[in-house]
């Protein structure tokens, strides 16, 4: 409980300074020397304004280059230096991993310590951890500009937003954070896999690597791909209670603070607080429910053991594990310090539901803010229907075009999740991967096997990346379909966000009248929470009932 309070206090402390700093970074007209050097090598003019199609094309071109590069890097790993003797990765797994890291998902169908060498980890995967996060922030900022600007179609310059996000925000924060993690005991070296003496006289092989530097950006950029298979449960990634709380802080700090950036940029801090309040309310609600169910230890096996400690580390215990698992699934992080598959039935359901909400409380860096703003547009629309007025948000009319774009946005992910899950359950071979359904005998109950598949596609399409690990996802079917779900779930929504931003920026502002819905008031935050829960609830309820609810009630 004290850990939650300390976390909230730390987040509150940096909320205003960081949020205002971010607003200043993205509004500034000055370019640092190193940035100018980067723009020259890219061949981009950072001061040229882009309309939404140009902004989108740059996002897609940059991300496509990322997928191709990362794919190639894994395919030829065997002939590259610093690969520690690891072989090349299979085509479907390389595709899956490339899609995963570029889409800010970091779903992993491989085990880091036995497949990826220094070069791929540090020069490929960690780089995408940085840039995919910066892309997310850039798109969110473009949407905010759409609200803030009038009678223009200009949304800023993608290259400038990308480079500034990296040079002025992510890299400096990551350097400080990495040093803190090393001070806690996370490793940071290039000694490869080396031999170490053992207590009984024998020897063991231990992985070395640039772990702390990758760990910090994995949390800060809400990526989640662990250096090791065990992710943040591995003592080299997350050595003690302090590093654990610090990592949760890193996950949440940018997504929460971006609401301040939003408020500052649209010229009304209280609009930002309303969004923050909505996010905070959902987060606190999930933390409380998760703590309750995990300490209550449901599930026959966990009751037998006397506590939900399966898949959890001694140094964290149940409380710190529950806090981590809520924070990782309500953002697009997907790092884990305990294994969600062994959570209590309802606990696993909460992890799923957190992702299904669209990861907006507070969500991924950037993606959380734009996802929440889309929900706000929908909530405003619903409110408008109730009183029979043309809905408007932040002085912009929400007309037919805007609401169509918002509706398309919220339909993509459920369509991907439910469609791919249904296909996987319906086809004859994919279910074999659920060691756990063939099961009743093997891993868990039939309901749990279904949950594993549902979780996999929910995690992929929402760009989370955590897993119910009982599913063997390294098959052609899952590598390919989850890879597609991740790419479509990341970039299709961006199309609609940017189109919406463009359409908002073209409008001229509507003056505020007595009849305007006050979107900075708690009443609106309440309406927003309701809209989010109802929309998600109705979409996913049947699937949830078949999986985690059946398990939790059994």
């Amino acid at each position, binding site marked *: 409980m004290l850990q939650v309070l300390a976390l909230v206090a730390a987040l509150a402390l940096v909320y205003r300074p960081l949020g205002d700093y971010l607003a200043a970074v993205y509004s500034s007209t000055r370019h640092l020397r190193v940035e100018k050097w980067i723009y020259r090598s890219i061949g981009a003019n950072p001061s040229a304004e882009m309309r939404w199609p140009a902004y989108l094309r740059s996002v897609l071109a940059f991300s496509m280059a990322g997928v191709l590069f990362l794919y190639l890097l894994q395919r030829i790993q065997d002939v590259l230096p610093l690969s520690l003797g690891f072989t090349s990765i299979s085509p479907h797994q390389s595709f899956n991993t490339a899609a995963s890291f570029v889409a800010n998902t970091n779903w992993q169908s491989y085990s880091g310590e036995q497949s990826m060498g220094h070069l791929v980890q540090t020069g490929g995967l960690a780089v995408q951890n940085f840039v995919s996060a910066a892309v997310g922030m850039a798109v969110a900022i473009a949407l905010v500009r759409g609200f803030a600007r009038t009678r223009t179609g200009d949304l800023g310059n993608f290259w400038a937003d990308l480079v500034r996000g990296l040079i002025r925000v992510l890299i400096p924060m990551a350097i400080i954070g990495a040093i803190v993690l090393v001070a806690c005991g996370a490793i940071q070296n290039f000694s490869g896999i080396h031999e*170490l003496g053992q207590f009984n006289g024998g020897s063991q092989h231990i992985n070395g690597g640039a772990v702390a530097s990758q760990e910090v950006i994995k949390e800060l950029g809400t990526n989640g791909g662990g250096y090791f298979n065990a992710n943040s449960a591995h003592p080299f990634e997350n050595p003690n209670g302090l590093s654990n709380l610090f990592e949760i802080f890193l996950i949440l700090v940018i997504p929460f603070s971006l609401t301040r950036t939003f408020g500052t940029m649209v010229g009304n801090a209280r609009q930002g607080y309303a969004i923050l309040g909505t996010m905070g309310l959902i987060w606190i609600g999930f933390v409380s429910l998760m703590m309750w169910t995990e300490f209550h230890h449901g599930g026959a096996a966990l009751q037998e053991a006397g506590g939900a400690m399966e898949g959890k580390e001694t140094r964290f215990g149940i409380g*710190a594990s529950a806090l981590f698992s809520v924070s990782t699934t309500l953002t697009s992080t997907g790092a884990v310090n305990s294994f969600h598959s062994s959570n209590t039935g309802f606990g696993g359901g909460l992890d799923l539901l957190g992702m299904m909400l669209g990861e907006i409380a507070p969500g991924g860096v950037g993606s959380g803010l734009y996802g929440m703003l889309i929900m706000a547009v929908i909530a405003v629309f619903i409110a408008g229907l109730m009183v029979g007025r043309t809905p408007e948000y932040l002085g912009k009319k929400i007309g037919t075009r805007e609401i169509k774009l918002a509706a398309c946005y919220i339909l993509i992910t459920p369509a991907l999740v439910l469609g791919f899950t249904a296909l996987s359950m319906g086809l004859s071979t994919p279910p074999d991967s659920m060691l756990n359904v063939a099961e009743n005998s093997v891993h868990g109950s039939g309901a749990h096997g279904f949950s594993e598949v549902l979780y996999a596609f929910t995690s992929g399409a929402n760009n989370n990346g955590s897993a119910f690990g009982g599913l063997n996802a390294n098959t052609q079917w899952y590598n390919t379909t989850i890879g597609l779900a991740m790419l479509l779930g990341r970039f299709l929504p961006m199309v609609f966000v940017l189109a919406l931003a463009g359409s908002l920026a073209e409008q001229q502002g509507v003056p505020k009248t007595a009849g305007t819905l006050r979107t900075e008031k708690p009443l609106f935050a309440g309406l927003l929470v309701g809209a989010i829960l109802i929309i998600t609830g109705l979409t996913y309820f049947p699937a949830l009932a078949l999986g985690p609810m059946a398990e939790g009630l059994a």
Partner: protein
Amino acid sequence: MNQSVRSTARLLTAGLRALLVLTLVCGVIYPLVVTGVAQAVFHDKANGSEIKENGKVVGSKLIGQSFTLDAKDKDGNPLPDPKWFQPRPSAAGENVFNTRYSIVVSGASNLASDSKILKDSVIARRAAVATFNGVPQRDVPVDALTASGSGLDPHISPDYADIQVSRVAKQHGLSRQAVQKLVDEHTDGRQFGFLGEPHLNVLALNVAVRDLATQQGRG
């Protein structure tokens, strides 16, 4: 048509150039800077917090080890060595790819909360741990019955250490009080009083037990 192909190509080239430059910044310069600082300021920690005993490295403080005999049980698993404090059960896997290394692949069981396999193994572990330590079954704590997340958990709870004290003391001919004192000294409370849970490092504790036993043998 030609125009749009050309502009697409130009855009992709820009994307690739951007990626290469940023790879240099985030994938080369950044990790080297962090490694440089880490190695200079926190040399031991950055290299894996190795524990030494009489000048010889006996492992990493952060990576759990097994303390077993050469003898195997009927399933082919090595039997626990009664002379040493035992760690938590582990569900870590074996390295199957690059077999010239004998690394342990970190990981958890991922068994569901209502899994019959998990329930059966909890029951079996409870019986085994109780017999092994000569304590009643109800005294076996939860961390002795469940596998950790990483499979490399270097710690156990104070409760699990307490039920092992008599067995370890007897095996070394040490007094119960002396071993209990070591356990108490090695118990780390919650960090700053509120972070995480109380725990003991099994490797460090066993090193201390061996030291004490050697001293007593000499004295």
